[in-house]
């Protein structure tokens, strides 16, 4: 049996980010932090995809997490970054727990479209809610670390350091979960749910649990994105945002818990470069790159590492 190198790799990546961060340009720190936030959402989607479920509405929980964090600052002037992330995660997990009783009954296209419909309901509600800035959204209070606010030139690095720490912990937790009995049932659920039932597990309960975990990760990502960007708006719940997460999931592949973060980073780089080169047609570049990945790497970018290992 090969040794499990994922935890060590994750810790090394986290340490590398912390070490290189102070010397990197500010815009790369921002890019990396947003990639880590989106990577958290994709990490949850990866878990669902391993069960054969595609959520077209994961932006619902991303947006809920962001708004929970933003509103805590707006209403109660809470700025502690860990409190905000915890609030984002808890809000999304709670909503997913309730909605999960409905969604865990559905599969394939019905699951996907139902999740999309619910995220669009949230979008509609936010757009119509003037107290939350309607379609303009509102600015998020600058975050602090246990009451300490770093100097301006260190803000981006501080947020990145927190994001890297949170992402590593979340990835390690999911990696560990995937090794537990419930986590290891994912391929069985994907392959044939009835078999899972006659082997002694409730597929619906298993899906429900994974759905809540995925939502908690999305909420965490949303809260992190809100503190990084400093602004939130209903677009975070819009279907194109959910599509972006699906895009990254396909780009990354489901082979490892590291893949979602790699995919989110590659996505961010392609998006930034494409926008820089061709501001009016950057979506074409994104579309072409996804097409290339689907054709040449149907198991996503992570399969490149798998192939190297196999060779």
């Amino acid at each position, binding site marked *: 049996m090969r040794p499990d190198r994922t935890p060590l790799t994750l810790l090394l990546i986290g340490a590398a980010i912390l070490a290189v961060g102070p010397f990197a340009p500010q815009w790369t720190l921002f890019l990396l932090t947003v990639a880590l936030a989106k990577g958290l959402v994709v990490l949850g989607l990866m878990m669902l995809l391993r069960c054969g479920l595609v959520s077209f509405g994961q932006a619902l929980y991303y947006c809920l997490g962001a708004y929970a964090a933003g509103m805590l600052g707006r209403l109660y002037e809470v700025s502690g970054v860990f409190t905000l992330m915890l609030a984002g995660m808890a809000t999304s997990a709670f909503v997913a727990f309730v909605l999960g009783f409905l969604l865990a009954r559905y599969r394939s296209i019905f699951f996907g479209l139902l999740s999309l419909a619910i995220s669009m309901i949230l979008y509609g509600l936010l757009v119509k809610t003037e107290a939350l800035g309607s379609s303009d959204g509102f600015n998020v209070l600058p975050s602090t670390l246990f009451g300490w606010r770093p100097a301006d030139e260190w803000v981006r690095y501080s947020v990145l350091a927190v994001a890297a720490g949170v992402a590593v912990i979340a990835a390690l937790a999911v990696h560990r979960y995937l090794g537990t009995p*419930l986590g290891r*049932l994912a*391929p069985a659920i994907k392959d044939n749910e009835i078999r899972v039932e*006659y*082997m*002694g597990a*409730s597929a619906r309960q298993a899906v429900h649990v994974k759905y809540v975990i995925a939502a908690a990760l999305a909420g965490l990502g949303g809260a992190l994105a809100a503190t990084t960007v400093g602004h939130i708006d209903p677009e975070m719940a819009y279907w194109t945002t959910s599509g972006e997460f699906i895009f990254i999931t396909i780009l990354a592949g489901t082979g490892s818990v590291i893949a979602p973060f790699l995919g989110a980073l590659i996505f961010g780089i392609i998006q930034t470069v494409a926008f820089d080169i061709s501001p009016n047609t950057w979506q074409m570049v994104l579309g072409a790159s996804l097409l290339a990945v689907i054709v040449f790497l149907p198991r996503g970018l992570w399969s490149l590492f798998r192939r190297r290992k196999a060779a």
Partner: protein
Amino acid sequence: MLKLDNVDVAIQSVQILRRVSLELPTGTMAGLIGRNGAGKTTLMKSVMGILKVSSGTISFDGADLLASPTFKRTSMGIGYMPEDRRLIPDLTCEENLLLPAWAAKQADGAARLERVYRLIPELRGFASRKGSQLSGGQQKMVAIGRALMCGDKLLLLDEPFEGVAPALAHRLVEVVANLKREGMTVILSESDLQHSERMVDRLLVIDRGTLTAR
């Protein structure tokens, strides 16, 4: 004891099982014989709860099975091997065997696995091979082992010898015959009496959804 009383099962308004009644005392090995489409698989799936019973009752050791979903029936000691084996190709033989232990969070999973290895020693030989690397007969063996992980009281084997090379089928017959010595209740289905005739205590003949004991 497994008891079915006037069980009716319909699939999409087509009546498959008609007033099926059956009593199988503990330790009985029963052969369920019938042509394709007679209702053998439907009967097993109904006992497992995979198909809904439209009327009648099914009980096992006094407990009403119809009140429990499929995943809870396994915790009563009922194991099921479907006709098409349904191993997960990317998991090893041992991981496929352990799936029920993971699914049902069995604390005694390791002991159950040892029991399976004791009953089917061949499984140890290809424990680390992936499901996709096993022959059809070996896959059947793993599938029986997996059903045994849950089924320590009642085992439902759907066509266990179907499509298996004669030498391996002979070995599978031995494996199933050994279960009888373990005191388990077993129902095994076959389209004819080719393998099961000599080992079964009771023969159940099913035709167009109606059961007749012989």
